[in-house]
């Protein structure tokens, strides 16, 4: 280790308070000397971090002590480290700012792994500070030692180990910069306990700037390529915009809406891109892919031009890539070059941030018109035809005496909250229903684990969202399977008075697994239904919260009115829904985008 190489030019040494000597090369005397732990606390404040989600333990205790001695950064004590990562993730998705997590070494760090992987798959900015055993113990299988850098290597954007306390401010600056810039992602910082020792203090200066010679995210796209793309766009006869989470993280929603409206073309988004373009607008076809809308999948399949921006042709979107959009040329804009032509070859690749590329496109289409207006009119007729085909047939509402349909519950929630709530989800059928039947006109509102599909994500994520948006309704749509993976966080909500609404679409089974078993395993429901569910009402009440049970359709509306009466109150709705319901449409495996099951009895 080359400790001396990383020290700042002015050095200072002290081993006990009082006998501190300080020399600086500039002859200043007002330099602050801080321990590594205090530097972390100070840095977080200077960086503008509002919340840390964390859980203490031996290797992190110096840091916890430093947090105790300040009030600028609020620490939220979760009940499981996975929840800390999901809460920080939810905070980041809703606010656009990086989330911050603090955990101890060993089990604390490994508990955070699922949340780090979740953030990585969805490109969410997050900094995870992990305690580590003291440097001299590393490699000795010391108590609570885990090589967390090694464990998380494939699921981080980057990671750092602190090798000298003096490098803490710069390393943390790099960590936040990397997490939030370019294609965002989680960054892990491993902090051996001796790096934060209270007795060793070093000069602290907040680094205002950071530069990494090997990391220069692009700031604009190639103008020639953008021009080529725009020419194709104007000539297109059957164009579709296909946009993803990159629009949301790239803060390009307004620009996108402007471009799409100017051209008058249809747009479909990925699950991660929901709300980037108002879903209530006529040009919006909803979202696409495995459980996407009929019209968006049909439009994609028949398109002659796909304008993909900030989306990554994920297998849950494309179905079989060899049958993907056979007649389409593809324009693909992404900030990450490795996303382009990874699974589907792009005809016009453009590496650049969504916002700047879209703005350049707008300036190029400004005083030009699409050259095939008749073809476009025909295209819209076709699309409207697809829409019409499915109108009123999306699901069958419950007859009197029948159990509620999950779809109608979500529609009702959307109505009661005027489509303005933040909705987080867990993973399963309820997640798909929430995405399909809640209509989002704004970005950052539908918060779901898209890439990793992490059960347990929804509830802690909702906590993180609620803290940035205390005056909004924040709803976690969950299932009884997923909720039980993170339900210990009720205790966190109690401690901090976090008033999220939990909607448990209780189908008494691991519904999505069961659906696959119905379709592929002749309804052999191997371990997909939950016997011995808790009495959720009693469980919630044990934490001092209100829970309402809804078993029949007429109970729904009053329960919702009650649940949403007070934005600050945590209310749990245990809503019994039809366990036999399936999510449709659903891609037929190995097919093209238009190959879909539309109900238990119909397919395209």
């Amino acid at each position, binding site marked *: 280790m080359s400790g001396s190489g990383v020290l700042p030019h002015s050095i200072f040494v002290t081993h006990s308070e009082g006998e501190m000597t300080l020399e600086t090369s500039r002859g200043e005397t007002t330099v602050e000397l801080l321990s590594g732990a205090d530097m972390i606390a100070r840095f977080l404040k200077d960086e503008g971090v509002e919340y840390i989600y964390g859980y203490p333990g031996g290797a992190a205790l110096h840091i916890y002590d430093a947090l105790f001695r300040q009030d600028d950064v609020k620490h939220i004590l979760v009940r499981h480290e996975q929840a800390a990562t999901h809460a920080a993730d939810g905070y980041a998705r809703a606010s656009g700012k990086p989330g911050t997590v603090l955990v101890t070494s060993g089990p604390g760090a490994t508990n955070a792994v699922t949340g780090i992987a979740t953030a990585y798959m969805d490109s969410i900015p997050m900094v995870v500070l992990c305690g580590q055993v003291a440097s001299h113990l590393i490699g000795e299988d010391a108590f609570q030692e885990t090589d967390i850098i090694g464990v998380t290597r494939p699921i981080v954007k980057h990671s750092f*180990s602190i090798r000298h306390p003096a490098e803490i401010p710069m390393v943390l600056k790099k960590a936040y910069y990397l997490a939030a810039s370019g294609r965002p992602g989680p960054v892990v910082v491993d902090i051996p306990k001796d790096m934060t020792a209270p007795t060793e203090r070093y000069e602290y200066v907040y680094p205002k700037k950071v530069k*990494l*010679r*090997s990391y220069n995210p692009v700031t604009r796209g190639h103008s020639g390529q953008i021009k080529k793309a725009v020419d194709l766009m104007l000539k297109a006869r059957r164009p579709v915009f296909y946009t993803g989470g990159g629009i949301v993280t790239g803060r390009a929603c307004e620009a996108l809406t402007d471009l799409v409206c100017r051209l008058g073309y249809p747009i479909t988004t990925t699950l991660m891109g929901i709300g980037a373009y108002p879903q209530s607008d006529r040009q919006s076809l909803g979202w696409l892919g495995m459980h996407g809308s009929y019209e968006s999948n049909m439009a994609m399949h028949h398109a002659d031009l796909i304008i993909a921006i900030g989306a990554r042709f994920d297998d849950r979107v494309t179905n079989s890539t060899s049958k993907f959009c056979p007649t389409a040329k593809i324009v693909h804009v992404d900030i990450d070059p490795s996303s382009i*032509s990874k699974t589907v*070859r792009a005809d016009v690749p453009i590496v650049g941030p969504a916002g700047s590329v879209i703005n350049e496109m707008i300036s190029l289409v400004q005083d030009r018109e699409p050259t095939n207006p008749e073809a476009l009119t025909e295209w819209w007729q076709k699309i409207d035809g697809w829409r019409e085909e499915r109108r009123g047939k999306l699901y069958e509402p419950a007859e009197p005496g029948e159990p509620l349909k999950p779809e109608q519950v979500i529609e009702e929630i959307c109505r009661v909250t005027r489509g303005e709530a933040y909705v987080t989800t867990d993973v399963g059928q309820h997640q798909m229903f929430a995405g399909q039947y809640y209509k989002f006109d704004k970005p950052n509102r539908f918060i779901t684990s898209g890439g990793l599909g992490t059960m347990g994500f929804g509830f802690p994520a909702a906590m993180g969202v609620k803290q940035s948006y205390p005056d909004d309704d924040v709803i976690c749509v969950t299932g009884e399977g997923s909720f039980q993976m993170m339900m210990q966080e009720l205790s966190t909500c109690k401690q901090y008075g976090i008033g999220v609404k939990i909607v448990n679409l209780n189908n008494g089974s691991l519904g999505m697994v069961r659906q696959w078993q119905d379709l592929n395993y002749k309804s052999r429901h191997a371990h997909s239904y939950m016997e011995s569910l808790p009495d959720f009402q009693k469980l919630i009440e044990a934490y001092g919260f209100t829970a309402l049970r809804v078993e029949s359709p007429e109970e729904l509306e009053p329960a919702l009115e009650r649940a949403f009466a007070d934005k600050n109150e945590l209310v749990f709705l245990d809503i019994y829904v039809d366990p036999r319901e399936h999510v449709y449409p659903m891609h037929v495996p190995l097919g093209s985008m238009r190959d879909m099951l539309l109900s238990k009895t119909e397919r395209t």
Partner: protein
Amino acid sequence: MRHIISILLENEPGALSRVVGLFSQRNFNIESLNVAPTEDATLSRLTVTTVGDDRIVEQITKQLNKLIDVVKLVDLTEGNHIERELMLVKVKALGAQRDEVKRTADIFRAQVVDVAPGVYTVQIAGDAGKLDAFVQAMAPIGILEVARTGVSGIARGDKMLSL
């Protein structure tokens, strides 16, 4: 097709494992790997040979470039380049074999660098094909041990991989 990718890598702990990990994580293949410091103490140079179609190799270079510790890289096989690998081979050298080893070594412009009773150690440099051919030529005499460095390479002419 076979590609030789040379990488300038931050000389940081863990940087190498990020590169190697990337190959296994994404199911890319590594035929050989060679890594050593450069004249700049902050950089190491890593050369990896891999086999894959254009789409895969494009992904490999893009994914490598995405690693924060990768400063710069070049696919040497895209242009004229010099490829070298060093190999040390221990062969049996008893009686008449001694001459044969020496003769074969001369043909390949290899050098005998160590001698022990019954054993010659031969050093040879060249591209991977030449080394393979040498191994084949020596096999009937009796190879005892082979140590190869993995391919290293550099572009011809004034093209450079530098900052």
